């Protein structure tokens, strides 16, 4: 049994092929830090995070957002084995980065908001539902190796 139906895979891949991953990454990470300011705790070395404008234009935020979303994008290529695809990253986030997995859920939902923002009506309820499954799956995979 597949994680996503063939139709859902079509919806996800169809939209994702139009996404500027680098840009959306920066936007999503920036909004995470603006909307949920406590998430800034992981980015003390990033410089000026003092206002929404400062965060959204911060070069380190953009660079890191790009990194994160490219990794997410790679994971999408292994949609039927997300736990396998993200095993190493899961260990890293637990053992080295000490990130509470709740943050993956927050980022996933912010990403959904950014996609809605960019795609408008094209991001209809069915497309959203498919993406909600994806972000939940990725969050779960990243939390899987925690101990």
């Amino acid at each position: 049994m597949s994680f996503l139906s063939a139709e859902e895979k079509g919806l996800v891949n169809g939209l994702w092929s139009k996404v500027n991953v680098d840009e959306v990454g920066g936007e999503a990470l920036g909004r995470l830090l603006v909307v949920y300011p406590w998430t800034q705790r992981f980015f003390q070395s990033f410089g000026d995070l003092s206002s929404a404008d400062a965060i959204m234009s911060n070069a380190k935020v953009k660079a890191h957002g790009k990194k994160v979303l490219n990794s997410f994008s790679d994971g999408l290529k292994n949609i039927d084995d997300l736990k396998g695809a993200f095993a190493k990253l899961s260990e890293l986030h637990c053992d080295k980065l000490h990130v509470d997995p709740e943050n993956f859920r927050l980022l996933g939902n912010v990403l959904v908001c950014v996609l809605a923002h960019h795609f408008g009506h094209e991001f209809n309820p069915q497309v959203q539902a498919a993406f909600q499954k994806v972000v939940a799956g990725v969050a779960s995979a990243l939390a899987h190796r925690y101990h």
Partner: protein
Amino acid sequence: MVLSSADKNNVKACWGKIGSHAGEYGAEALERTFCSFPTTKTYFPHFDLSHGSTQVQAHGQKVADALTKAVAHIDDLPNALSDLSDLHAYKLRVDPVNFKFLSHCLLVTLACHHPEEFTPAVHASLDKFFSAVSTVLTSKYR
């Protein structure tokens, strides 16, 4: 979590722009919630939940009207929403987790329809506002 005066202004401005579309957006947010988070449908076994359902449209209008009232009384949500708070606590008893799902889908709906308004700062203010409303609606649960 406290709504700053900037938050209140952002919410009022954004909600003002929505105007008469509020009911339509309420219905869309509900549809998105049922689609993305199917467990929420358990609270509506008596509804036709298919796309375009008149029951969902009517309920979306109800939700939107309550939010419009909340925006108008943003300085005193507990008082303004007291009856709704009683309703949710003693009659509807919707599990608190579900308010987060609907709040998220309201954000998604607004992002889709009003991209220019949905800046990061407004996104943050709206999220806080929906969170504050949810807190009031679940405040009498126990």
